[in-house]
């Protein structure tokens, strides 16, 4: 009932918007579209107009971030079409794009990657938005430029560089529900030849508790700080030296049960230097050096007598030198090519060695307009690797303008995700007696376990050791995107994209041997094949300079191919505990966990220019999805328990006083939607939606 009310209200609000703007649109004919087209760098690693791009891409502008009062990366990405943040079972929030898990989306800051995927998920809530110029989202396999992880797409967070001469500062403070404080300080100084910028963010929260039955928080209290300084030096018109340092530190309580308590500390730094020189109209080059470290440590003590229970640590380093060059022989042709090296190390609890990865790579991209109406991009990258099979990743894309209003675009590309350290080197024995081994450790550890009696004999080996003698193959995919963009009038934009990702060699954990204690030895190897396919529609309408309405929709089918075969062949069954099994047919297979068939969003932005006031309403909808198998067949079928469909509505208003002061107020999740567990043992619930959040904001520019 509650949900229906939301829907009615939202339709009402949208109708108000529509009626209102209808009145306005007639007046608008004479106004000339003056906004410059948005420029994106992520898609081609060269500056391109977003509208001319043959790839599906989106930009979230600083204006949108500020008007919506978003403070962390996960908040804003959740409002974009086809993107959803999914909670990892140990708490991190990763991004799902085109139905692919967060392992398969590369996340960059200013073109260089964030690391620290301790269990596959990169927690994007650690990225503060206070100094962000724009967020660029490119969908579809992009390994031809970016190598590993860019299988589903790339998210690139572009930070702001000082733009105006002189000194400039900004202080922003946001306070909201759950005692959440967020403070930003930006200081910029720019002169003729150099600029320097500093950014500090402090973010803290008391966390929240959805599981009211027990004395354990869903999200534990935390405090974190982000520091970022940037230096730009232009000794002459053709040369730019850029140096950036970023540091993030977080301290969080860690209370998994009532009997245990500890802390989790995260420390991350990124150092990035880039020298760009333009030699002529045709040639330019970049020398780039990037190093980053992500370190997480936690410990647990007993609550009763504070005695030590457990501790673990994770310390990952990536160092990447890269040289790249651009060559533009004429106005319609451009090349970009690069050569570089990834050097990665990891020290981690439960690893039997400290592994080192070395991966040199080379890439080249050719971008050409053979005619006025056609744009083609051809690119490829080769990644050589010390620990797994080397990868060749090609990509091709086209955009064709049928006329001024309608353009077709399409692309096909290869994407891969390298096996992570854990999948290769893990050597972990759990409390319950089981053992998990990384792929590369199996051939030495299993014979050892037989020798020391943990495994009775070779007869207990379930998967032959020969399977583990080669190299683990990277998970890989071929991604197809085809669609059009349509601008019937300058105020209206419609974009449609149909996508399919064909994924193979997915790495899964499987039982490989039986242990003497009745438990098993598990390891990772390439088994699964899956696909995600669907379509995405984005529309926007800007009837006046004051009003903008946009809407987006994604339809998604994400399935495991082996599971689909089982259902098609009538070999899949389900049962309710205590009752006999029944047979399932092909229509009963829902697909992969945590995927919604329908996701939609609508945003209405309105600014009363005369009042210096802007307001907006943003709604997102997600259809039902499954989190776990609940009827004993390991698959998600239509008889399983699902998380019900829901919608979330956020509202914000901001008013500027005396030019430099801005006050904001907003409510996230107006209707206080939560899906809390029905009991301590209910696992089908939503952990990352805490309910209504009311906040205020103060922003001072000086």
């Amino acid at each position, binding site marked *: 009932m509650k949900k229906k009310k939301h829907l009615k209200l939202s339709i009402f609000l949208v109708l108000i918007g529509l009626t209102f703007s209808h009145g306005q649109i007639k007046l608008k004919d004479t106004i000339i579209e003056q906004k410059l087209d948005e420029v994106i760098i992520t898609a081609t690693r060269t500056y391109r107009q977003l509208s001319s791009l043959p790839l599906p891409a989106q930009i979230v502008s600083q204006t949108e971030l500020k008007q919506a009062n978003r403070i962390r990366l996960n908040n804003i990405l959740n409002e974009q079409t086809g993107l959803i943040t999914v909670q990892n079972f140990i708490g991190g929030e990763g991004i799902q794009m085109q139905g692919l898990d967060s392992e398969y989306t590369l996340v960059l800051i200013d073109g260089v990657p964030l690391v620290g995927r301790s269990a596959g998920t990169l927690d994007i809530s650690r990225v503060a938005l206070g100094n962000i110029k724009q967020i660029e989202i490119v969908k579809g396999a992009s390994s031809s430029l970016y190598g590993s992880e860019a299988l589903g797409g790339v998210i690139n967070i572009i930070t702001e560089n000082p733009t105006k001469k002189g000194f400039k500062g900004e202080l922003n403070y946001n306070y909201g529900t759950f005692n959440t404080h967020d403070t930003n300080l930006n200081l910029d100084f720019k002169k003729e030849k150099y600029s320097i910028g500093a950014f500090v963010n402090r973010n803290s929260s008391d966390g929240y508790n959805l599981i009211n039955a027990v004395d354990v928080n869903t999200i534990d209290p935390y405090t974190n700080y982000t520091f970022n300084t940037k230096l730009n030096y232009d000794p002459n018109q053709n040369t730019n030296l850029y140096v950036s340092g970023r540091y993030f530190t977080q301290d969080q309580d860690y209370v998994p049960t009532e009997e245990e308590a500890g802390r989790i500390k995260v420390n991350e730094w990124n150092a990035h230097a880039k020298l760009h020189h333009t030699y002529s109209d045709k040639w330019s080059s970049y020398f780039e050096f990037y190093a980053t470290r992500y370190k997480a440590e936690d410990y647990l003590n007993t609550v009763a007598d504070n005695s030590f229970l457990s501790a673990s640590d994770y310390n990952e380093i990536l160092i990447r030198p890269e040289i790249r060059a651009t060559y533009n022989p004429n106005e319609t042709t451009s090349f970009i090519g690069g050569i570089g090296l990834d050097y990665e190390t990891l020290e981690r609890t439960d690893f039997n060695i400290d592994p080192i990865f070395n991966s040199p790579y080379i890439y080249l991209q050719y971008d050409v307009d053979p005619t006025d109406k056609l744009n083609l991009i051809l690119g490829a990258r080769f990644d050589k690797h010390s620990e797994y099979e080397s990868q060749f990743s090609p990509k091709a894309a086209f955009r064709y303008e049928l006329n001024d209003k309608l353009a077709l675009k399409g692309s096909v590309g290869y994407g891969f995700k390298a096996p992570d350290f854990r999948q290769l080197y893990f050597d972990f024995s759990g409390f319950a007696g089981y053992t998990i081994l990384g792929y590369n450790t199996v051939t030495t550890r299993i014979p050892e376990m037989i020798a020391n009696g943990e495994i009775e004999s070779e007869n207990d080996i379930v998967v032959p050791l020969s399977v583990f003698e080669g190299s683990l193959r990277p998970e890989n995919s071929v991604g197809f995107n085809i669609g059009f963009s349509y601008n019937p009038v300058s105020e209206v934009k419609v974009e449609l994209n149909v996508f399919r990702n064909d994924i193979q060699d997915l790495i899964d954990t499987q039982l490989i041997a039986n242990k003497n204690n*009745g438990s098993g030895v598990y390891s990772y190897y390439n088994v699964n094949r899956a696909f995600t396919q669907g379509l995405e529609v984005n529309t926007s309408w800007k009837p006046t300079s004051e009003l903008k309405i946009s809407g987006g929709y994604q339809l998604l089918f994400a399935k495991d191919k082996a599971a689909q075969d089982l259902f098609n062949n009538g070999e899949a069954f389900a049962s309710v505990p205590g009752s*006999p099994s029944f*047979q399932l047919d092909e229509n009963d297979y829902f697909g992969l966990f945590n995927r919604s068939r329908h996701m939609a969003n609508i945003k209405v932005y309105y600014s009363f220019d005369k009042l210096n006031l802007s307001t907006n309403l943003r709604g997102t909808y997600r259809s039902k999805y499954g989190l776990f198998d609940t009827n*004993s*067949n390991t698959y998600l079928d239509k008889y399983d328990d699902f998380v019900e469909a829901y919608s979330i509505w956020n509202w914000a208003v901001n008013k500027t006083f005396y030019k430099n002061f801005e006050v904001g107020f907003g409510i996230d999740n107006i209707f206080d939607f939560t899906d809390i567990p029905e009991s301590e043992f209910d696992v089908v619930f939503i952990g990352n939606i805490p309910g209504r959040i009311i906040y205020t904001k103060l922003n001072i520019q000086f």
Partner: protein
Amino acid sequence: MKTIKFLTLLAIFIGFSSCSNDDDDSVILEVESETVLNLFAPQEGGMDQMGNPIPVSGAFTKFDFSSGATTTSETEWDIAFRGTSIIINGGVSYGATDEPERNGNAAAYIANGTFAGVVSVNTSNLEQDSVNGYVLADWYTYTGPPNHLILPTAGKVIVVRTRDGKYAKLEILSYYKDAPEEISAEAAANDARYYTFDFAYQPNDGETTFE
């Protein structure tokens, strides 16, 4: 309702066909179908309070298809339960503590299908317990944290050749006392190791169908 009607009709039909067989020389016995509720299969050991594995021990609960009941007989049993372990009275010991002596010629396999859908025995699939493990090891799914439930994997029907060459099929419905649909935390902790299962027993010698 439809199913019940259908089953009634089926039962009458089967009844009639078996009646018509009464004219034959040999006496054909009807397939016996029953539900066994709360067969208790306790074990000792398994794991200490810190979660460290310790050897499992304790007597198996033995079951005899011909009587459709549990038994303490050393010889007159077909299948036996202890915790999640199920052994058959055929083959050789895996070496676990307190396994009863196998003195019959039982064999078994796990068929994929519904209970009703398994209409005959594929004798080429039959295997006996061995030093490598139990034939009937793979009947359940462990749900892992936070609930740690043992749930019978859907679509697994255990097909058994009894110690004396008859055939039976069996579907485990629950591992918890009174076969609840919602297994509470208390039930998971205190009421485990109670098997509820449907079985059908074909009492006619060498007959491999269940109809």
